[in-house]
């Protein structure tokens, strides 16, 4: 989580968190390294982006905030 803290320190109002794998998130039951302080940073982030509805629900349930779904598969299709 050190880069999250570093980025938050440099740009606290412009942080967008890309939430991929539950094990690497600082919150939630699947986290390998729960970190309440890092979770608080993510909760305050300008936006949280996930790749699908499953992760959107996971963020909603375990962090208590909205996340935007942007499918990288769809973007790949659109830009190719």
């Amino acid at each position, binding site marked *: 989580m*050190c880069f999250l803290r570093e980025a938050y320190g440099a740009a606290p109002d412009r942080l967008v968190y*890309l939430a991929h794998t539950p094990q*690497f998130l600082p919150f939630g039951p699947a986290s390998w390294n729960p970190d309440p302080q890092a979770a608080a940073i993510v909760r305050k982030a*300008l936006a949280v982006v996930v790749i699908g509805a499953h992760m959107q629900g996971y963020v909603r349930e375990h962090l208590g905030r909205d996340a935007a779904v942007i499918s990288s598969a769809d973007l790949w*299709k659109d830009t190719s």
Partner: protein
Amino acid sequence: MRVLLLVRIHESFGIELSIDDVYSAGLTLAELAQRIDLLQLGDLDSAEYAELLQEIEAMSDDEVRHLLAEVSRRADPPDIETAAHSPPRGGSTRSNLIWLEHLASSGHECRVVCSGEPGDASAGGVAILSVKDLVRNRCVLSAEIRGFRPDFVLVSSRI
């Protein structure tokens, strides 16, 4: 029988397992499939493999179909210089790069700061700065943010 299995695996997947791999006590089909996957995926470690599976499982059937179609079509990727993002390792990094390439194609100036052999590279219009041992030298990250003054700072959960 096991030798025949090794031959079939080689024929089907183009990889060579050792006889020890299939003589391992208690080796299940799922474990054998994982070994084949890891060998095919190259540098991925087991954590990255787990991450990749999670991402695939989080996709809808349509998303997976789109991805497979694009992978097949892009069988000959462009040459990219050395950096942790180029070529990207792991599903998260690939997704991040796709998002950034999309932003770059929309006219945004995008810059990646990542761990890797020191140097600058680019991929799909995205500038990539690789920093050796970025964890120890993470002050470079905040210096880049202050110098580049981006509208948004995207931080991946992978890090």
